[in-house]
């Protein structure tokens, strides 16, 4: 049961279809727990590790030579802003996972600087997730996660790990950084899964 706030009218946002509790943002807010890591493409690598310890590793040159896609998606941050029709370029996780033998059900994304976030593996497949290295036609800036970030737009944006450097496939789920601090394990914005228990 909501409490009525006397004198509050709000500002209705026309036809934009947003998840519950979100508002439309036109800028691009930055959220992160610490300083922006400085990661040069010369030392950047991306490593995919299966639950049996099998590795696939790409350096920047190899990674950016993989087939890439243009992606236009809405993004939703747990701090209540949503931004519509953002455009990115990156490599689909389907490409990275193609032919990888795994029975894992979960994945942990790992970033330069120590950030982690957990996701079910099916949420990274079937055209739902990318490792993006361009935003709006330009190289991805460090404060937005450059050189490359995970992009999983159907979940709250903390799942789209900035400065991503690898994904570990796991048989059982485990908490990432914000998830261990009370944020939801799955984070579906349309079901408003902001915090554990939502």
């Amino acid at each position: 049961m909501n409490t009525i706030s006397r004198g509050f009218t709000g500002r209705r946002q026309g036809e934009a279809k947003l998840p519950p509790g979100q508002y439309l943002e036109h800028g691009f807010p930055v959220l992160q727990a610490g300083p922006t890591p400085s990661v040069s493409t010369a030392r950047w690598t991306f490593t995919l590790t299966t639950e049996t310890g099998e590795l696939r590793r790409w350096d920047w040159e190899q990674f950016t030579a993989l087939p890439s896609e243009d992606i236009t998606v809405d993004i939703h941050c747990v701090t209540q802003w949503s931004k519509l029709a953002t455009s990115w370029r990156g490599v689909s996780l389907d490409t990275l996972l193609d032919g990888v033998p795994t029975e894992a059900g979960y994945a942990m994304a790992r970033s330069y600087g120590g950030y982690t976030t957990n996701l079910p593996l099916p949420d990274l497949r079937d055209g739902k997730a990318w490792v993006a290295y361009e935003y709006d036609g330009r190289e991805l800036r460090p404060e937005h996660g450059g050189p490359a970030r995970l992009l999983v737009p159907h979940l709250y944006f903390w799942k789209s790990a900035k400065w991503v450097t690898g994904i570990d496939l796991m048989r059982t789920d485990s908490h990432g950084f914000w998830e261990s601090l009370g944020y939801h394990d799955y984070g579906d914005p349309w079901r408003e899964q902001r915090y554990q228990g939502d």
Partner: protein
Amino acid sequence: MARAAVSGRLSWHVATIKATSDETESARTLVLDAPGWPGHQAGQHIDARLTADDGYTAQRSYSIASAPEEGRLELTVQRLDDGEVSPYLAGIAQPGDQFDLRGPIGGWFTWSPDSERPLLLLAGGSGIVPLMSMIRAHGAAKSQVPVGLIYSARTPADVIYAHELSERTVSSPFNLTLLYTRSAHRGVPPGRINAAVIAASAFPPNTDPTIYVCGPSGFVETATTLLVDAGHPAPSIKTERFGPTGI
């Protein structure tokens, strides 16, 4: 990164405004009575949910300004002219008015009076709010660790908590450095945070301070880069940002 566990479902509480006070021309403190509110850790925030009489709702996050306390908390809200919720909370709302809130949220950007490391705080604009909760928690616990605050505001009239901050420099081991980005007073030229300010006013890396930086994204980016360049290890620096960047 070290972590503190937070668990259990966050429930909504009805908050009733007990008092308001204008901190600056555009920032207002709301003293809230919230039965069942469990208290918080200094630095945390809440989600506020406002509901119009036709059922329309809007949610926003606001930092807690007060020291941790059960059943009661204070928010300081900066009014954004193009905002949806802040013009209400920092303008229209009066004592007796109510809204829903839940929290406390955010287990990372937090400070505990148990900490024995020097506490270095850097605030840009209304980024002072969660840092003020730390300063007040430090005072309430009579902590003797030294606290240094570097606070960048547009003009002297934009300094939130100016009187209280000044008093605390006398009553506790608290050092205050104010920077004015637009216009200063008494012949002091305007200035932004830079390496000279860090060298003169920040605890040096060999004292191993724990560091919290909060403000607009550009301020946080600049300040954290200066701190890392000055030799502070990245894991000692925690950040909280608001507002968009230019793309």
